[in-house]
């Protein structure tokens, strides 16, 4: 009798743990929106910077990017839960984004100022890390 109670308790507890895990995953979908917005913002910012290689273009691009970063930071801070591994995946996203960002900007600013053939694919490339991470986060959140 004792063993039957144990079995029922154990199965019920494990089922409850699974439900709670799914609930946390669902509520952590805000990170997908954050990563999509980050990707879109960085695309626009880099494109503005590359296609308008003057003081006004630089100012507009930096102002746009700073506003996006502030809004995204406030949005992230207001969320009540961060799924397991979010800090790690965010660090990977920021690290890879930084590498691509400078790989596009350094040659772009020095040799391809105003050249759409460089800056359009370059802007897409810079947006890839956050967009790829958004896809992976969405896939993870959709797991049962």
């Amino acid at each position: 009798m004792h063993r039957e109670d144990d079995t029922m308790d154990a199965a019920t507890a494990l089922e409850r743990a699974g439900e709670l895990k799914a609930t946390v995953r669902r509520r952590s979908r805000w990170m997908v929106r954050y990563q999509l917005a980050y990707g879109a913002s960085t695309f626009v910012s880099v494109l503005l910077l590359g296609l308008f290689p003057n003081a006004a273009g630089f100012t507009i691009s930096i102002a746009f990017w700073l506003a996006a970063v502030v809004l995204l930071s406030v949005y992230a801070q207001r969320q009540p839960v961060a799924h397991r591994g979010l800090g790690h995946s965010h660090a990977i996203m920021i690290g890879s984004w930084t590498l691509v960002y400078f790989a596009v900007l350094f040659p772009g600013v020095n040799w391809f100022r105003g050249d759409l053939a460089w800056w359009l694919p370059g802007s897409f490339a810079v947006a890839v890390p956050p967009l790829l991470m958004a896809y992976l986060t969405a896939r993870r959140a959709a797991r049962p």
Partner: protein
Amino acid sequence: MTHPRHGLDEVIHAPVRFSIMATLAAADKAEFGYVRDTVEVSDSVLSKQSATLEKAGYVKVSKGYVGKRPRTWLSLTADGRRAFEAHCAALRAIAEITPARDAS
């Protein structure tokens, strides 16, 4: 002494504390109000049970502000995560082994 129930953690085994641990195990961190609503308990019950888990070294409670609003965050410590995984392993062993013994 070989029954897997001996592997259960007395601190975690209580239903509310188990639910708190399960919620936090799926998260890097969670806000107090979110855990309260997810586990479906009152503020006072969550405070009491999270204090017990904190005393056991399983949960870390940190306080901060979002704008002018004070916030309390809960997260599992490394010890807490290990203890919860071991507790779940014991639960799985109980769920899997006991029917086989009954059948014999």
